[in-house]
């Protein structure tokens, strides 16, 4: 479904992503794990078109999307829940969801919002509230609901567990698994490698801009080097 082939991304003179290639197949949960600064978010932002690669290709459903402006990438069926959630803090919960459906016909919005409320009942309770008044967990749910409003085929999540209490992290990961079962392919970027690998079909380990290991979720959980570097022993 998604095929990233030899991308190189620079921040000015800094070579942040060095020839990264990976793929995500239809129906999978794939995770990119790695330490802070390894290039995980940079990779997602490049796929979304917010950053640019100097080489290679990014194929989504058979089409090269390198050079497609970010606001058009969404319409291809590729949504991103950005790092730090980035919900629109001064808009209401419902308005945030409407923005998520920006590329969809107006006739679909109501049904889409109803779907999101079914998955996240908390959001329905707070639909008229300004997003800035939500708790961190609720904002994460809103960010995910907002991304789902675009009816994505592939959902990219950037550090969904960041800053959340362990119980909320469990809940968010349960939701990710449910979404996947409902047919959404997932690309998950996480520092919480343990959690990410436990729900992922496959994973890639990113280190200073390069992929250094790959395998199934279980394989990587058992891998000595991965254990040592990312799983605390």
């Amino acid at each position: 479904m998604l095929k990233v082939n030899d991308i190189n991304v620079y921040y000015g003179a800094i070579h942040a992503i060095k020839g990264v290639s990976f793929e995500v197949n239809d129906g999978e949960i794939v995770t990119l794990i790695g330490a802070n600064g390894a290039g995980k978010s940079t990779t997602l932002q490049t796929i979304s078109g917010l950053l640019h690669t100097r080489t290679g290709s990014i194929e989504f459903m058979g089409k090269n999307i390198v050079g497609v402006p970010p606001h058009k990438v969404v319409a291809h069926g590729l949504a991103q829940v950005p790092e730090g959630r980035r919900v629109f803090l001064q808009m209401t919960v419902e308005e945030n969801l409407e923005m998520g459906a920006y590329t969809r016909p107006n006739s679909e919005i109501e049904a889409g919002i109803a779907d999101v409320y079914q998955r996240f009942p908390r959001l329905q309770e707070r639909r008229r509230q300004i997003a800035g008044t939500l708790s961190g967990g609720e904002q994460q749910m809103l960010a995910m609901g907002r991304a789902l409003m675009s009816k994505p085929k592939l959902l990219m999540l950037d550090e969904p567990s960041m800053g959340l209490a362990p119980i909320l992290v469990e809940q968010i990961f349960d939701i990710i698994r449910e979404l996947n079962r409902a047919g959404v392919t997932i690309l998950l970027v996480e520092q919480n490698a343990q959690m990410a690998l436990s729900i992922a079909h496959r994973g890639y380990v990113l280190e200073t801009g390069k992929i250094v290991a790959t395998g199934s979720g279980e394989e990587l959980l058992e891998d000595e080097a991965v254990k040592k570097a990312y799983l605390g022993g």
Partner: protein
Amino acid sequence: MNVMNFLNYLISGISLGSIYAIIALGYTMVYGIAKMLNFAHGDVIMVGAYICFFVMSGLSSAALPPFAAPILGTLVAMVVCTVLGVVIERLAYKPLRQAPSLAVLITAIGVSYFLQNAAQLLWTSSPKYFTSVVGNAQLTLFDGRLTISAVTLLTIAVCIIIMLALTTFTNKTKMGKAMRACSEDKGAAQLMGIDVNRTISVTFAIGSALAAVAGVLFMSAYPSLTPTTGSMPGIKAFTAAVFGGIGSIPGALLGGLLLGIIETFARAYISTELSTAIVFAVLIVVLLVKPAGLLGKTVREKV
């Protein structure tokens, strides 16, 4: 203190403030979305006033129903200013989207001088006498002790209508909401599929159309039209936008009205010469106490 005089000053202050508020909307909306100060905004007012002037004088000998010429003049001015605003943004500001804000600021000042000098070249610097769009009609109250001109009433009414329309637009329409989303977080807005460049164009279009309206109203009250006419109301409206809290639409209204009232009272009760200085002194004091302006938001972010 004479009560009737006081009322009279207050109403003129509100009327002048309404014009500042309409201009301030252009500054504040553009700042909210493009995060830039469009110092050429005042000169778009001047262009709008000239266009309206020429349409009205061109039609002066034609047999038209009353008010047809001023309405047509205003509409043509709005269309021309809308196009002008969008073109300025496309040619001068869009290429600088990633540039430091100082470069954009200098460019905006350059565009301002460009418009003033182009106007001088086209229309000379000798003043044109602008005829009020509603003539010299007056409303007389309290046995003639209080007279309010039709321009004053029209200005206040137009300001109210614009505010209501704009509030509805930003809160109820898809484009309006997209504008709010862009003003908060352009990156996240793009991830939603919002075309940020298009949203910025629409903002410039609306701001410039409003500038044309403000130009017509301002000239109806202060009829001497020259190529530099727009700069003073422009700079005062910018002050009003900062006063109310730049980026905030209600702030532009509040800042504009207060500025107009303070200026009119200062002129009436303190000193005509010092009125402008007093206005800016009040601004400085307000910014010392509330740096974000009266209704400005201090941004707090949850991580």
